[in-house]
């Protein structure tokens, strides 16, 4: 506005909104998300997410790489749940090739995937609590996460971007101490969840900051296409592990926790419950761990799936992750496309945040649990 306008000062006060640029370098945007906020005082009246700061063109790169070479890229989509990313890709290729993976490998995959789900939820709880100001939970969850990472490190050889699976099974069988380590962890962990819940679940400040914040009805959640804990917290009982079972999940007994109203507190409760359910799955898988090989016998050295296409989905900690794979019979895919749960879940942010305060935006970014590696790909 020009300063020589007749009612310059009145003009200023008519427009009460302020544009605030949150990110890409901001402690609570979980990476390089940029959120443009339109504020009236501290009330959010509009919001826009600007993504792409971590875009690496993974889908395009995959068109030039052979099938085994693609697996490490899936570590780097959702890098806090790398094993779940690997799993969906190798299973897709195996489906395309018709490879039968040995049962022991299947069980080990389930154990690792569920442990990774726990690490992902722990990381979510850590950052979510930190955003709301409870700094201590952050360190506690990281301690438990570290224990899982040690287990994974001893088995696979890497901590974060693990490259855990090969097409057809595993590179190596589980290390001898694997079972003992996992059992030790399972013994310790439930008590630690109780500890987190003592600090948070009834805490009036935590309640004030999460209850009723970012309410999302079931219809809305389905319309946006949300999946994972965010959807289940709204009361929709949809979990790929049950809805379209893969691997050996039908053999395990576990529940799908759901919320009632779909606010931030429900999403918190759902994820806490999911961790407990993951413990149950790991326990059962460990008890029933079969003997045998961990690599399918008939996987050729050069992998050339028959021409065709496959769409395979898994339940990653963030939601439903899908891989659409088109093979033209050569050793590189013709087209690969990822259905990223984080990208879709992020679309709910605007609906969640409008009408809440600026401080709630950080809680809401935390509650949808995004990883920018997967949003931007």
């Amino acid at each position, binding site marked *: 506005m020009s300063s020589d306008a007749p009612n310059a000062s009145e003009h200023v006060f*008519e*427009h*009460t*909104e*302020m544009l*605030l*640029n949150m990110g890409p370098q*901001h*402690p*609570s945007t979980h990476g390089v998300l940029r959120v443009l906020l*339109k504020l*009236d005082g*501290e*009330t959010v*009246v*509009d919001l826009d997410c600007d993504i792409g700061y971590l875009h690496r063109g993974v889908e395009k790169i995959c068109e030039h790489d052979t099938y085994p070479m693609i697996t490490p890229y899936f570590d780097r989509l959702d890098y806090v749940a790398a094993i779940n990313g690997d799993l969906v890709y190798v299973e897709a290729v195996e489906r395309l090739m018709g490879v039968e993976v040995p049962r022991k490998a299947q069980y080990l995959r389930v154990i690792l995937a569920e442990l990774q789900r726990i690490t992902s939820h722990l990381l979510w709880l850590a950052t979510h*609590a*930190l*955003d*709301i*100001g*409870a*700094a*201590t939970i*952050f*360190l*506690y969850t990281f*301690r438990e996460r570290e224990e899982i990472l040690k287990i994974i490190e001893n088995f696979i050889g890497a901590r974060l971007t693990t490259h855990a699976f090969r097409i057809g099974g595993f590179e190596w069988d589980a290390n001898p101490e694997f079972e003992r380590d996992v059992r030790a962890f399972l013994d310790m962990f439930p008590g630690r969840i109780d500890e987190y819940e003592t*600090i*948070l679940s*009834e*805490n*009036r*400040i*935590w*309640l*004030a*900051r999460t*209850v*009723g*914040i970012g*309410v999302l009805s079931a219809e809305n959640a389905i319309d946006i296409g949300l999946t994972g804990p965010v959807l289940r917290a709204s009361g929709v009982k949809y979990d790929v592990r049950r809805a379209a079972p893969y691997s050996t999940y039908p053999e395990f007994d576990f529940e799908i926790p759901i919320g009632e*109203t779909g*606010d931030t*507190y429900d999403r918190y409760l759902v994820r806490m419950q999911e961790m407990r359910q993951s413990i149950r799955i790991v326990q059962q898988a460990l008890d029933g761990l079969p003997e045998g090989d961990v690599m399918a016998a008939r996987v050729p050295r050069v992998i050339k799936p028959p021409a065709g296409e496959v769409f395979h989905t898994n339940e990653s900690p963030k939601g439903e992750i899908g891989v659409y794979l088109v093979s033209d019979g050569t050793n590189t895919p013709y087209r690969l496309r990822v259905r990223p749960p984080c990208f879709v879940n992020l679309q709910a942010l605007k609906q969640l945040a*409008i*009408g*809440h*305060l*600026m*401080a*709630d*935006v*950080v809680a809401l970014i935390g509650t949808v649990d995004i990883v920018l590696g997967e949003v931007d790909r």
Partner: protein
Amino acid sequence: MNRAWGNFAQRRKGATVSSIVRPGLVSFAVSLFLCVFDAPLREVAAQTQTQAPPPPPSPVVPTWSPVELIESLGVSHGFAEYVVLPAIQFAVLLAAILTAVAYLVYLERKVAAFIQARLGPMRVGPVGLLQPLADGLKLLAKEDLVPQGADRLVFLFAPVIAITAALGLLVLVPFGAAWGTVTDINIGLLFLLAVASVGVFGIVLAGWASNSKYALMGAMRSSAQLVSYEVAVGMALIGPLLFARSLSMQEIVEAQRFTGLWFVVLQPLAFAIYFIGSLAETNRAPFDLPEAESELVAGFHVEYSGFRWAIFFMAEYTNIIITSAIAVTVFLGGWSFPGLETAVSWIAGTDPSTPLYSVVFTLATLGVFTVKVALLIYVVMWIRWTLPRYRYDQLMDLGWKWLIPVSLANILITALAFLLAMRPDQGGVFGLLEVTKNGLWIGWTGTAWFIAVNIATFTVAAWLLKKLNRTSWTTDIDALRRAEAQKRAGRLATATERGAR
């Protein structure tokens, strides 16, 4: 009992205003009743009254002072007492406080680390004891950046305001008996509160001058927060002042020493309010919104770097020391401790005029005060590293709708109880308190009376809070959800009305 609460809940239909007015009317009626039936009540009391206990001997405070020592060097008495001694005291104090602040940061990091299953600083010096020094050097060596478009002069000057206000207060804090304190003025507490609120200018100006939206929002939040919590804190202090009958910091301590009772026993509610309020005033979690890291990055000092940033940091920690010191002085007996005089007399004899006695006594009181303050600061840190952070509107709710009403109720009821408890010939009824020439004497009966009164105050406060806070009172999750949805709709309506949408 159960049903009674339920009925209250069902009957409450009227506006909030009436729920404020009604308790007011009730208390007015009570006071009217007391005025009218004053004389007959006294008559009744005069017959039932038991003899008040005899006042104890005046406590022993050393009479020797280092002024004599300075005088013996050939300095005139006035110069020694009003210039030389205060200068020495203040220099020592400043050095001590700056070191204390540096080590508070260290302590905070250690406390946080132990709570969080970590070790904290361990590398610089044994168990990291030289870490503050290393941090200080690092900050001094950093570039002093002024952002483009900042109001340069104000930007550079703001930290000075903050630190001056904080350090200037130190002269009045009664760290010890006799010459353990720099000075004591008869409006001490009032002066402390007044100057402490000057510090907020530093914050506001820093936020304004930074030319950054985050800093501006931090400054806005903190000015609103400080101003509103000052009210609650100030009113919480009135309760104990009724018993202290003085604003001078030393006399407040003496009053507690005289009756042998720390005022926290007589005024627990006021202590709780003061403590919560002072957390908010010093921007500590769960009220650290002005510098809420996750939302505002660092709030008002986001654009500061190097030593200017360190000055804000120092001011913050000095403020923590001062608010804790006020809490200790007013509620926790200041430098006094039961049996302290006896302990001192074992070492230094019983003659209060000897230099030895004076030195030992003063140092002992300094020690007691430091330990009390340190314990209180530990609690502050412990709270910070456990609890999540309130949201801005919830913080305001807590201040205006919880703390201020309770502190008002507390003042009212305590004052009435005080009046009733005084000796009839001194203007009261029951004669449980006695004003002697050394101060207020509260015997066992008086203490019991005030504890009973506190329980009553607590009930009244609970009732009042329930009336005022229909939504935030509840722990029922569904009710909280509804309330939050309502608030959200209300905010959106306001925004639309203002054309922001």
